[in-house]
């Protein structure tokens, strides 16, 4: 080639680079499939390869040729112990319990003798695996379809041949997409709050413990709960998803647990924690070892749970490549998956923008002899409130009555029958209130907590108290001055009470806002035996179905498995737990719910940075929720609800109307649309909706610009 030609080629290349044109992926160097792997299936986007001896798989992007490995590569020189090497060299890792040893033991394809039989299936394969030394065998089916990879491990396929060894749990492809010391660029996705990202970068040993949390919150039947007056607990996982994105390779997946979520944990290990790898996975637990007290004050023995939890494992890896390989793209894929699974069958998806107004009826405080009512809002006052807001321009609202029953907010737990307190107006007052709300076009729901039980006001129900698997009654301190402890009811009793209560609510014409059971997942002890979390899950699902079949049902902070029954959800987390290893928080949940499920955020009242919170609502498309009382909340200072320190309607009226007006305008422009993209650049966030509307939000305290759109400090703009 002549010098001139070389110069021309160089200039052309530079020009193309400057113009942002990239060479086709095929032209880039693509890694070869390692030896030992056999192609098992292909879809329009990916090829699936299997290493039969270790069950390791590789997913190959057909567009770019980039690979996603399910095991760690080039591990010969790593100095991790044999267990870890076995863990990251095996496609599937099993755990078992030997007798009643206090820990579980790992069985993998590197350190344990194993027999594998592969049977090709349409779109994948079934692997029959047996560990002869342990005597446990099972079958795993892996299929590839247009959306991703599907894993099924039915419990019926598990065979335990030896009483000495019992199955404890599984990790299915825990190292899929793993990265070593930041060699790949990208991030892991964890379900903390709305969703959070952990960057793939060399942490140089900064972190000492992983993210390892139970799906749907702490299993209170087995684990001790931290009940501190000073600390705010970490956000429980309400969405059973996790993910990984390789930004340079433009490959990513979102792991979605379809079945087994009742007994799963989600683990995310940033590098430096145990090994040099970043990995994220679901951990399914069939059995566990726990400490059984032998006396009330001292002495324990190790026991394993009586039987395995009853569930099949069904997990999907929703795959994304190209421009879709981002957290936003995966959130959209998750939404599509939920559409296919009819997750929003009951959802009031076409609901026009409104906000939630939670009214506090009454609470109890100590008096000379016994306790007395503290009426915060009577039905008559509530009607005045709603009239005033309607006159001010509030066209739509979801009104939720809290503390409406005899005994009020904490004295009246559990919600046991339709018994509006005389102090707020009784049945006639409530009827009038329901009529008024209907006339104004507002939905009215009564808060119902069929889980919490006040042992002081309901001593007869203490016989139905929720017990830990050790058969100890579970209770927690309230830090309140009126009632010192609170207990839970057994799921069966909750269901029974709900069945008795809901028809009366329906007859009265009110909806229901379910609390408590919506956010609990636990094993428990009932009828002299261990009941696993799948039993609780089934009962709670039935309870919510019972409610939804009779009245409009809103679920408070609900675990995702209940979404298919809900008309709307509330108390949705806006932020995460501030783990030091999370690099940024992203509205994964909001993207997935947008355009499908009306979602109301946590209370505006207790936000210290109200402007920032408002902008988060604009960004996420979530609806605000206000807690209101007609009386000054200072009246609650000597009650168990002294944490309600800001709720006076007089002081909030104008704020409600202003927020409604401003947010309704944003929602008007995005009405009927869903979020299709979400990008962050410094303090500015760009949210793209399916109809083409773009919302820019500047969270910074200085003016900023994005795509030529100028934004003042702490402001937003909607561009159609």
């Amino acid at each position, binding site marked *: 080639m002549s010098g001139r030609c070389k110069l021309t080629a160089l200039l052309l290349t530079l020009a193309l680079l400057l113009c942002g044109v990239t060479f086709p992926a095929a032209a880039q160097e693509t890694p070869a499939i390692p030896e030992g792997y056999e192609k098992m299936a292909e879809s329009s986007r990916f090829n699936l390869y299997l290493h039969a001896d270790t069950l390791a798989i590789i997913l190959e992007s057909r567009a770019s040729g980039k690979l996603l490995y399910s095991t760690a590569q080039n591990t010969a020189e790593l100095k991790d112990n044999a267990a870890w090497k076995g863990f990251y060299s095996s496609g599937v890792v099993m755990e078992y319990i030997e007798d009643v040893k206090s820990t579980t033991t790992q069985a993998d394809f590197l350190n344990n003798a194993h027999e594998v039989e592969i049977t090709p299936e349409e779109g994948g394969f079934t692997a029959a695996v047996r560990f002869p030394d342990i005597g446990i065998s099972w079958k795993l089916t892996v299929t590839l379809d247009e959306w991703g990879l599907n894993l099924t491990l039915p419990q019926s396929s598990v065979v335990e041949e030896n009483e000495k060894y019992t199955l404890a749990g599984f990790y299915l492809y825990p190292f899929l997409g793993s990265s070593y010391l930041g060699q790949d660029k990208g991030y892991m996705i964890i379900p903390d709050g*709305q969703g959070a990202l952990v960057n793939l970068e060399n942490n140089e040993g*900064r972190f000492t*413990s992983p993210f390892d949390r139970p799906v749907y919150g702490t299993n209170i039947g087995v684990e001790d709960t931290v009940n*501190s*007056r*000073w*600390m*705010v607990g*970490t*956000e429980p996982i309400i969405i059973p998803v996790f993910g990984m994105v390789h930004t340079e390779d433009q490959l990513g997946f979102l792991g979605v647990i379809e079945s087994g979520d009742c007994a799963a944990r989600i683990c995310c290990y940033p590098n430096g924690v145990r090994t040099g790898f970043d990995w994220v996975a679901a951990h399914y637990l069939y059995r566990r070892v726990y400490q*059984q*007290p*032998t*006396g*009330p*004050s001292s002495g324990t023995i190790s026991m394993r749970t009586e039987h395995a939890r009853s569930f099949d494992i069904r997990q999907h890896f929703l795959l994304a490549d190209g421009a879709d390989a981002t957290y936003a793209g995966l959130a959209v894929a998750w939404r599509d998956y939920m559409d296919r699974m009819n997750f929003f069958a009951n959802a009031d998806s076409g609901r026009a923008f409104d906000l939630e107004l939670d009214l506090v009826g009454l609470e109890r*405080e*100590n*008096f*000379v002899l016994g306790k007395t009512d503290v009426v915060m809002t009577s039905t008559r006052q509530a009607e005045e409130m709603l009239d005033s807001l309607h006159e001010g321009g509030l066209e739509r609202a979801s009104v939720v009555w809290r503390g409406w029953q005899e005994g009020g907010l904490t004295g009246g737990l559990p919600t046991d029958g339709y018994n509006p307190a005389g102090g707020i107006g009784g049945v006639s007052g409530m009827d009038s209130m329901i009529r008024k709300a209907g006339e104004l076009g507002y939905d009215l729901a009564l808060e119902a907590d069929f889980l919490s039980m006040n042992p002081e006001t309901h001593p007869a129900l203490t016989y139905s108290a929720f017990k830990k698997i050790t*058969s100890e009654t579970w209770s927690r301190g309230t830090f309140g*001055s009126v009632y010192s402890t609170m207990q839970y009811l057994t799921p069966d009793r909750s269901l029974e009470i709900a069945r008795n209560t809901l028809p009366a609510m329906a007859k009265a014409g009110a909806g229901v806002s379910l609390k408590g059971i919506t956010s609990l997942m636990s094993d428990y002890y009932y009828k002299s035996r261990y009941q696993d979390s799948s039993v609780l899950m089934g009962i709670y699902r039935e309870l919510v179905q019972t409610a939804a079949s009779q009245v409009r049902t809103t679920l408070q902070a609900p675990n995702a498995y209940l979404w298919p029954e809900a008309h709307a959800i509330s108390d949705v*987390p806006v*932020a*995460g*737990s*501030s*783990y*030091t*290893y*999370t*690099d*940024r*928080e992203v*509205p994964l949940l909001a993207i997935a719910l947008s355009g499908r499920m009306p979602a109301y955020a946590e209370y505006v009242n207790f*936000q*210290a*940075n*109200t402007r*920032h919170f408002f902008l*988060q609502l604009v960004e996420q498309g979530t609806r605000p929720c206000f807690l209101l009382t007609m009386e*000054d*909340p*200072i009246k609650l*200072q*000597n*009650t168990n609800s*002294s*944490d309600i*320190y*800001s*709720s*006076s309607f007089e*002081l909030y009226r104008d704020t409600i109307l202003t927020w409604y007006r401003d947010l309704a305008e944003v929602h008007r422009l995005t009405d009927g649309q869903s979020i299709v993209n979400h990008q*962050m650049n*410094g*303090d*500015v966030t760009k949210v793209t909706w399916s109809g083409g509307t773009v919302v820019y939000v500047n*969270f*910074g305290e200085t003016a900023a610009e994005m795509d030529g759109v100028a934004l003042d400090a702490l402001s937003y703009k909607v561009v159609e």
Partner: protein
Amino acid sequence: MKQKWKRQWLPLLAAVLLVLQLGTAQAAVPYRTFTLGVDEDLVQTQTAYEPVRAMTRFGEETLKTPADMRMGPDGNLYIADTGNKRILVVTTAGDYVKTIGDKKTLKSPEGVFVDDSLNVYVADNNGRQVVVFGPDGAVIRTYERPTHPLFGETSPFKPTKLVLDKRGNLYIASTGNTNGIIQISPNGEGEFLGYYGANTSTVNWLTAIKKAVLSEEQLATMADIVPTSVKNLCIDEKGMVYTVSQSSDNRSLRRLNVAGKNTITVDWTVDQLTAVAVNASGSIFTASASGYILEYTSEGNLLFEFGAFDNGDQRIGTFKSVTGLVVSDDYTIYILDEVLGSVQVLRPTEFTDLVHEAFTLFQDGKYAESKRPWTEVLRMNSLFTYASTGLGEALYREGEFGEALTSFRNGGNRAGYSDSFWELRSDWLHRNLATILIAIVVLAVVIGVLKAINRRTGFLNPAGAALQRVGSVPQLSHVGWCFMMLRNPYDACYGIKREKRASIPAACVVVGLFFILYVLVKYFSGFLFSTVQQGKFELLRDAVMVFGAFLLLVTCCYLVCTINDGEASYKDISIGCAFALAPMLILWPIRLVLTNVLTFNEEFFISVLDVVAYGWTAVLIVLALMYLNDYTFRKTLWIIVLTLFTVLIAVALLFVLYVLISQIIDFVSSIYGEVVYRFVRQV
């Protein structure tokens, strides 16, 4: 090459990541924030400071057990990086600036201070010296152990923390030196000026006894006898030195003037304070090792308490062991953690900015201007007592006494409430005095006329006769006899002992009435004179206190009297003691009314009433015991002393009995539990 790449790009990458981090959605705060409520109890409030980021790397540098941190006049953070034997200078954004000192010059730098000329003073604990570095990092002088005789032959010089005043005097806290802060002048070799602001040990009756009985060697081994040493210190613009020590009382934070006298008493604190800071606005911040941060006003009133211990969750805003604290003038807080090796940054929320704005206006006397921010603070938190008080002051000055009264009541501010109430009462009296006088005159005239008519016609005689009949009912007359104690105690006792003018049921009624009044006075006295926490009723405890104490006293007194030739029976003593409460029955209703209508200006009347009520009752008890037992006055006093001693012994015995019974119950329930778990559940 790789290292070079890192050196060039890592700071940039860190800066980019930092910017990204600031731009992310606001995360949940891992701790709750509290403020002082009406009854000096902590109540929850909005988040005051939110964690922004945790800085663990500064360029390529990391920290190893850092022990102290200051902000220099250049706005940089100077960190005593003890484990790495150096002072690390970094920007508030986390960028590395420079390193001062090394292993050759420093052995264990535990304290650092930066003067206006950017000279860096380092307390080198194991080096037993203070090393001064110039702005260029060169050592310009050292201070070693003072040789002055007043320093003490055995007093150690192991500097841990230090500050410098405007005159260049050094204030040095030293490990193991409980004489106080070592004050050294910059003159000459470093002249020892003396000890300054020594902590004192707590003196209570137990320590007083120990001091009287034990030898000096024994005393030296007792922690509560030895004053605590200063853990950390800082200095403000006016030269006031703030110290924290690890005592748990309200003297753990002190503000020392030039003479070394404490000028502040805080209303709330926590254990194990390890760091203190003060900013240009005079706000004082302290931190405890376990991660609790407290903000005080310049008067020492707790504004906020927040923070939490890191229980392994690794959340921003939780701490393992706080050793350093810096607060900038814009209230950004930097917290140094020696275990995590991090500097965490917290910034005030909108709510806190409002509180500070209102406080500044309020402290400057701009009450009217402070009304707006106080109102906004109250909108966000109705239980925020400072806002209620601040708003009350503003309203009071505007003459809105009714609203001011409510605000002061909500804020628990008794002085303000008293003033507002005085104004309202004065106004009410001014408007209604004539009406009241006319009503009194009319009432007197009506009574006079009725009496005159009754004298002529006797139309009220049937009613009088009926009253007499009621009065002559034996049970009522027995109760009524208690008032004879007020007129003539001797006759009253004679009637009890000889004439059967009283009975045990009557005594029970009197004690019952006393209990009712006790409850009313305790729980329904006016806000100004109430001594109980609002909303807290302990009726069972009150009943045990009143009836139990009465029974115990009477029983013990009777037992003592029987072996001391007393003539009184158990019945006589019971009735006598019960009837001695008669002054209370008369005066406490008056007290109850007065506490609801008087202000602090007339507090004297309440005090006099209390002295009269208690004094009169005590005198009647003495007289009753004397007359009923036919004792001399001196013997009666001796009997009372013996009775009190007997009560003490009885209480001790009851306590032992209680413990024994509890243990038996525990034992039985343990056996039951074992049986259940081992056999019923077949464990």
